[in-house]
């Protein structure tokens, strides 16, 4: 018992990684199950966040350098542009189909 408590108490790299893993899995779950395009974007945001968290955690615990943080900044930047473009597409689709259910918009493949 005490070992586990000690393990829990000694917050280290693995704890952060687990948090980020949970975020990632939830993001995956969202993307797998949602039919709403905006929801899917939310899931993607979660995934990106988890990646960023990983970078920072590694940079802090493993390398001691700031490179990881820089990557995270890039990820955030990417997330921003992705959100902008993605939401713009969603709006465009909404104007076209009056819905944003991704199943309803399958005509894209033709």
């Amino acid at each position, binding site marked *: 018992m*005490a070992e586990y408590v000690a393990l829990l108490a000694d917050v280290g790299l693995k704890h952060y990684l687990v*948090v980020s893993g949970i975020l*990632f899995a*939830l993001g995956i779950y969202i993307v797998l199950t949602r039919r*709403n395009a*905006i929801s899917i974007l939310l899931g993607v945001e979660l995934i990106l966040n988890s990646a*960023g968290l990983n970078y920072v955690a590694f940079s802090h*615990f493993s390398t001691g350098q700031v490179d990881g943080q820089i990557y995270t900044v890039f990820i955030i930047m990417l997330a921003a542009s992705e959100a902008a473009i993605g939401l*713009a597409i969603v709006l465009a689709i909404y104007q076209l189909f009056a819905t944003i259910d991704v199943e309803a918009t399958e005509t894209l493949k033709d």
Partner: protein
Amino acid sequence: MEIPINVLVFYLVALVVVGSACIVAFSRNIVHSAFSLLGTFGGVAALYVFLGADFVAAVQVLIYVGGILVLILFAVMLTHRISDIQITNRTVGRIPGLAAGAVFLGILVYAIAGTDWAKAKEVAFEPTTAVIGNLFLGDYLLPFQIAAVVLLVALIGAITLSRKEIKE
């Protein structure tokens, strides 16, 4: 046994992050989902602070909370009539999705636990903004510039996409 305060805070924040992420994932209401994202983003920003990444935390708050989240909320509002908010967050195939997510998480945790991660010599807490700034204009100049271009393109692209078609 005495538990240090910072450990408690970590767990608190982690709980906030995971909990709000769960709401994002499982809520039937997309507005709730979107708002819960706020908790996640904020929590992650807090975690960044714990990890000594003050600049990144600031960026996270500014861009995510201030930008992306607002954007998403706008999108939600624009694509749904307020009246039918309840029924818009359809979910299909919960069980396989959950299974896939669980399997994935299981493997991740297994990998995380089983790996002997490299350790830095010392764990430092210093202001990083200056260092990052220097790196952006030094080693990472090119990616930085490219990022700028990408953002510009995204900006223009978003405008082009979302503006109404001009009827001919």
